[in-house]
């Protein structure tokens, strides 16, 4: 168990490409932290620096009390689960799981005991003598996890482990992975591009974009108080509606096309602004703002209505009880659920 502290961590490749801008944060002992963002945002690079698979250009990395910048991956007491599992093709499941322990000089009996225990936890006991090529994707994934668990490391690192699984298996494994981590209490850093995984699994989420950390917070904080339009639109599906508006001298908020919104502008702002409203924070049928519905998407448990509000693209989501059809409907906006962002840099106001 250990705390992971990143101080001033910065990654620049020899060709000049800045993969991770200078950042600092602390991951608490036992915490499950998810690094989430689109492809190329630097989340994997960050993870790999923690693992020791990438060199840290600047900054200090501490695992526990130790500074580990120059420590070999094998000596950092970490375990990693790769996206494509990275199982040793020529070894059986039990050998795969025991390899890391073998190299640390544990006696054979002890290794066998630990492997058995981990196999039981992951329902792999029947497969111990098989080779990876004889296993299904889900089973291979569990072997990869077994390999990590058996080491009882200070830190688990996950690099998009569920991406190669089909949707149904993914949902199931999400729950299993989280439950396992809770049970073991080991600090975990998990990388994914899937915001659903981030929201459902994390104690805290770190949202990255273009090498920069956009926000760190609990899932609730991220969802309810996104720090920028990027976080607001990346996290949560369907995405938040972001509207171009202006705050007039009378403190009224008017959309660029002219429609006035019945919301209170933030105290200090004036001039151009971005207004964010989540699709579920609107009520159909009441209120004074006209919403022009063009497409209705039926999802079963909810309905998504897509159209325009005051000339700008807009979506509303309602539960299955609300009937909906195309045409113009008035919608009510929950004033407490409106977010404001600066038009210059996208940051929250």
């Amino acid at each position, binding site marked *: 168990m250990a705390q992971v502290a990143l101080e001033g961590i910065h990654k620049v490749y020899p060709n000049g490409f800045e993969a991770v801008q200078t950042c600092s944060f602390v991951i608490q002992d036992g915490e499950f932290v998810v690094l989430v963002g689109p492809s190329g945002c630097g989340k994997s690079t960050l993870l790999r620096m923690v*693992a*020791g*698979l990438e060199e840290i250009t600047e900054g200090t990395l501490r695992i526990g009390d130790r500074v580990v910048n120059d420590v*070999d*991956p*094998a*000596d950092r007491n*970490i*375990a*990693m689960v*790769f*996206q*494509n*599992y*990275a*199982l*040793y*093709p*020529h070894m059986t499941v039990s050998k795969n799981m025991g*390899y*890391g322990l073998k*190299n640390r000089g544990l006696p054979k009996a002890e290794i066998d005991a630990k492997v058995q225990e981990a196999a039981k936890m992951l329902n792999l006991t029947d497969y111990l003598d098989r*080779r*990876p*090529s004889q296993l299904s994707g889900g089973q291979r994934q569990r072997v990869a996890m077994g*390999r990590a668990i058996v080491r009882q490391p200070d830190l688990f690192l996950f690099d998009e482990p569920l991406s190669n699984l089909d949707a149904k298996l993914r949902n199931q494994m999400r729950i299993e992975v989280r439950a396992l981590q809770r049970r073991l209490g080991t600090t975990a850093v998990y990388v994914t591009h899937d915001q659903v995984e981030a929201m459902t699994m994390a104690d805290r989420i770190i949202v990255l974009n273009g090498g920069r950390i956009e926000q760190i917070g609990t899932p609730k904080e991220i969802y309810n108080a996104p720090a920028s339009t990027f976080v607001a639109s990346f996290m949560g599906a369907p995405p938040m509606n972001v509207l171009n508006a202006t705050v007039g001298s009378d403190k009224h908020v008017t959309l660029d096309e002219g429609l006035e919104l019945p919301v209170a502008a933030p105290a200090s702002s004036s001039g151009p602004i971005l207004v964010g409203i989540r699709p579920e924070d609107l009520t159909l049928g009441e209120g004074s703002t006209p919403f022009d519905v063009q497409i209705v998407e039926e999802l079963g448990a909810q309905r998504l209505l897509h159209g325009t509000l005051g000339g700008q693209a807009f979506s509303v989501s309602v539960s299955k009880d609300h009937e909906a059809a195309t045409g113009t409907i008035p919608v009510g906006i929950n004033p407490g659920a409106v977010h404001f962002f600066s038009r210059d840099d996208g940051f929250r106001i």
Partner: protein
Amino acid sequence: MKRAGFTNPWLPILLLVPQLSIIVVFFYWPAAWAIQSSFYLQDPFGFGSTFVGAENYTDIAQSVEYRKVAWFTVYFTAIVTFLSLSIALLLAVKADNVLRGAKTYRTLLMWVYAIAPPVAGFLGIMFFDQSHGPLTRFFGFFGWDFKLGVDYFDTATAMIIVAVWKQIPVNFIFFLSGLQSIPRSVREAALIDNNSGVRRFWDVTFPLLAPTAFFLLIINITYAMFDTFGIIDTMMKGEPGANPMTLVYKVYLDGFRGNDLGGSSAQSVVLMVLVLVLTIFQFRLIERRIHYT
């Protein structure tokens, strides 16, 4: 055969005719001819030949000369294969490790592939020249009076050195390619599991390189037995005499210089059988190729 094929009746035949006819004329006909004449003894003055049954074969089996050449072939093949494979493996592993200059090293290490065996042999003659070849001097340092072309053992050593030199590039290329096809994530997993580079190599890298290694083994054996003809021919400077030679060279010698067509053909047949066994072995191996993925 593709599921979606064409059913034109005569076109495929037309397409196959060139290849098949060349093969029949220059492969099957000669092969059959060789087998047939191995059972005959040709009159040296060209007055025809007499059927002698398996006599040519028994002659071979009893010939001291043949046995000597056979042993040399085995010895030569084993050493050349072992040396060129190990040196190439070492170089490939290092070339794979190195971050900078990988491409340059690869170019420098593989160009020798394009040199013709006799040219390599010619260079060998110059290097082992009795009076002032650099390698002769080098060996002289250690008190070894190197006599290329005169001393059997010395000539054999020189041939081995040249043959190994010529073969390293091919093995290097295959090993490097094999190394680069091991998934990066497997190697990273090994980095996390094991902090010793040497142990990582033997536990993870080498087993995954095994298919390539087996395949190269067969290639190298074939090379040492047959493709070194040019090297051997050149380095004995045209005087076979008591010089070391491989079995295939003896086939050529007895057939073309010695005019012993029957004996030479019998030797060819023996080699044919040997190659048959090797190739079957190779294809079996490829089929059962240790496919882990």
